[in-house]
């Protein structure tokens, strides 16, 4: 395995590596052994995409060859993998104690489903923040809003009937939560292996509307990141299909209410980042992620009630 897996710092090599797992286990039906000896770091977003791929190979695709792996030499990485549910997924024992010695949860085990399950969205933040951090009620409800809408988007749009893949694969999402202790921030990520926003956008809006929106954004030759940006903008617009277009808009409300942090959407070859305050940035990659990953990142300090002081 590569020394580091990260969608932010090493996108192409990370996506290539994860794609290789599928190509070998599913395409060639050869056994995959993940050797973590040289690996010291897996970013949270890459972790979720990796977990989803292994889940697919081990739990969904009946014809996949076995995927398993070693324990990493790096203890921090072993802790991260264990806490995120990696070894449980591989059906091997956790070597470290259940409780993180630091006392603070850094990962909660990934969750997967095929419906909009509000209880999961609510449980994630409670499990992640523990009894000591009480998220502001408005932020808690906005994170709930974003997560349930993201799940609904997966169920309704991510896997159209003509999409490849076995039937029991349809509508599936994977969810993980992470506390980055170093940066003191909360990260929540939802991933699906669907066809991606650049493909679903033309099915949800007519071509004239998309063209007009791209034009209003000053985009002449749209690539995948620009299609994600257009999808977000169309969610804000008043159209005759307005009642179906607000889901993506809901994704922003958590960082908007926090007044800080970011929403990042990776979909197919595109990467779209929205920062609280309105700044947007776009990146286009060579390789497709093979789905859509939505990540919310908000500083821990912004989550709690600020005392008025007395």
């Amino acid at each position, binding site marked *: 395995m590569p020394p580091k897996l990260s969608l932010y710092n090493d996108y192409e090599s990370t996506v290539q590596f994860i794609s290789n797992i599928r190509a070998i286990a599913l395409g060639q039906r050869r056994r995959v052994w993940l050797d973590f000896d040289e690996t010291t770091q897996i970013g949270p977003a890459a972790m979720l995409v990796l977990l989803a791929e292994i889940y697919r190979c081990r739990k969904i695709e009946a014809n996949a060859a076995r995927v398993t792996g070693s324990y990493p030499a790096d203890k921090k990485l072993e802790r991260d993998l264990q806490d995120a549910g990696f070894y449980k997924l591989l059906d091997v024992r956790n070597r470290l104690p259940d409780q993180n010695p630091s006392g603070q949860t850094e990962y909660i085990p990934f969750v997967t489903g095929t419906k909009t399950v509000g209880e999961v969205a609510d449980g994630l933040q409670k499990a992640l923040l523990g009894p000591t951090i009480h998220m502001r009620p408005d932020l808690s409800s906005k994170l709930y809003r974003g997560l349930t809408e993201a799940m609904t988007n997966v*169920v309704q749009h991510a896997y159209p009937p003509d999409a490849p893949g076995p039937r029991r694969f349809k509508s599936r999402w994977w969810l993980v939560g992470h506390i980055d202790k170093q940066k003191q921030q909360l990260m929540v990520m939802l991933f699906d292996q669907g066809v991606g926003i650049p493909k679903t956008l033309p099915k949800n809006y007519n071509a004239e509307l998309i063209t007009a929106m791209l034009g209003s954004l000053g985009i002449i030759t749209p690539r995948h990141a620009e299609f994600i940006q257009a999808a977000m903008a169309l969610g804000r617009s008043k159209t005759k299909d307005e009642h179906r277009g607000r*889901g993506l808009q809901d994704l922003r409300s958590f960082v908007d209410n926090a007044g800080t942090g970011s929403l990042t959407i990776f979909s197919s070859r595109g990467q779209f980042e929205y920062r609280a305050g309105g700044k947007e940035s776009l990146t286009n990659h060579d390789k497709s992620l093979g789905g859509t990953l939505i990540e919310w990142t908000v500083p821990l300090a912004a989550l709690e009630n600020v005392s008025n002081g007395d």
Partner: protein
Amino acid sequence: MKTQKTINLALQFSRFPGGRFNTDGEFNGEKFREKFLKPALDENKSIVVELDGTAGYGSSFLEEAFGGLVRELHMDPADLERRMTLVSNDKSLISEIWEYIKAAK
């Protein structure tokens, strides 16, 4: 016809509403509209919907539950305004729902 009915969404339906259609998830907007809002509006002169106490709401749930009264059941927004009272500490939530109702013609 009875006089008034109060529906507490969190207590009578779910603390965890989410999704638009029955195919999206168990506690979706279509289900709340058909099982709670429609019968209550059919059988009562007025209804009160208490919205607090849930973990939150997504726009798909709200639009389908309340906007769907107009779009799917062809109820009159002005009549709904007279007969339905929404209660929440979050005033933006109430405004949002009325926006969906008025936009759903």
